[in-house]
């Protein structure tokens, strides 16, 4: 497989644009940079940040989407994290939730561990996999204008799960660190939806 052209898109700017009008969308972020990217847009009660459980972001999104069919759910993750949960794309395709979007911030590298090249930089196309798994819509984005357009589109209802890959520059902006206390983040998230802690 061939290398694709490196993107010039700034990941922080892309995520900020994507979430600018997120309204009551529930967001789960994957290890590691997407968690920093989400936190950099502002800490919120309806954010659930992963600091581990690699491969789990989209599937946490699935369980959440199934429990909250009246709300839109976004799993914001990276190429390495989604590659580890590749089978989950098949599971989500079969489950076919209408309120779950997966957005992969794809720098084509394992950015947290020394920028080793990932499969997506070697031609593996997550959108093609999602299409083959029955997703309702997929796209690959490379420009601020395309991200702007997607921000509007993902607010609209869908016929099934959608997966979008945003190709970004391979760089590590200064980390923006949310709490690493998962019990706190979990209880805060649940309280936001009206559920009491045990």
């Amino acid at each position, binding site marked *: 497989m061939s290398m694709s052209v490196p993107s010039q898109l700034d990941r922080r700017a892309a995520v900020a644009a994507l979430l600018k009008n997120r309204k009551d969308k*529930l967001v*789960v972020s994957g290890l590691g940079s997407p968690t920093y990217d989400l936190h950099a847009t502002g800490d919120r009660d309806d954010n*659930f940040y*992963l600091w*581990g*459980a*690699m*491969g*789990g*972001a989209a*599937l*946490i*999104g*699935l*369980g*959440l*989407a*199934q*429990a*909250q069919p009246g709300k839109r759910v976004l799993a914001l993750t990276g190429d390495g994290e989604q590659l580890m*949960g590749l*089978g*989950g794309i*098949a*599971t989500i395709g*079969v*489950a076919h939730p209408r309120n779950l979007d997966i957005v992969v911030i794809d720098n084509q590298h394992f950015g947290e561990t020394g920028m080793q090249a990932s499969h997506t930089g070697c031609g593996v196309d997550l959108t093609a996999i999602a299409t083959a798994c029955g997703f309702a819509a997929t796209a690959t984005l490379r420009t601020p204008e395309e991200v702007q357009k997607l921000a509007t589109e993902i607010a609209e209802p869908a016929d099934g799960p959608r997966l979008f890959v945003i190709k970004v520059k391979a760089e590590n902006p200064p980390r923006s660190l949310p709490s690493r206390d*998962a*019990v706190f*983040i*979990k209880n805060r*998230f*649940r309280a936001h*939806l*009206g*559920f009491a802690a*045990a």
Partner: protein
Amino acid sequence: MHSPKPTPETDWPSELYRILKAAGVKQMSYVPDAGHSQLIRMFSADRDVTTNVLTTEEEGIAIAAGAWLGGQRSVLLMQSSGVGNCINMLSLSAIGRFPLLMLVTMRGEWAEFNPWQVPMSRATQPSLEAIGLKVMRAETADDLVETVESAASFAYESDQQIAVLIGQRLIGKKKW
């Protein structure tokens, strides 16, 4: 094929279904095992429960956490070989203190034809305990029903992470 008529002693899957429904379970995910087949059929036919078939067992750990974030209770069904696939994902349940109820049918421990089931069978309980789960075990139908009832309340009411191991002796010998 002739199937014996279910008796209270052999119809534990129906009892488990009743208990899990009474506990308010709204999501069920699974990688199949013959020992779980009746329970899988019952949940799959239940319109009030969302059922997910998984490609690998750790997906169900993440789905259960997401379900809880959204206010729903979830149960995860697998066989013992699948426990090995779950270990790192169980960090999520352990560190987040997410309620987790896994029902694990044991292979490789009783009249097992396939020796490849044996190593993971041996590792099932120690590896679950090493990552921080509470492990409960049942060898008879009556004991299983009571154990799952207790485990469900422990998981969902007290935010615990529980695996119930269902002895292979109880499930019966696989026909080859």
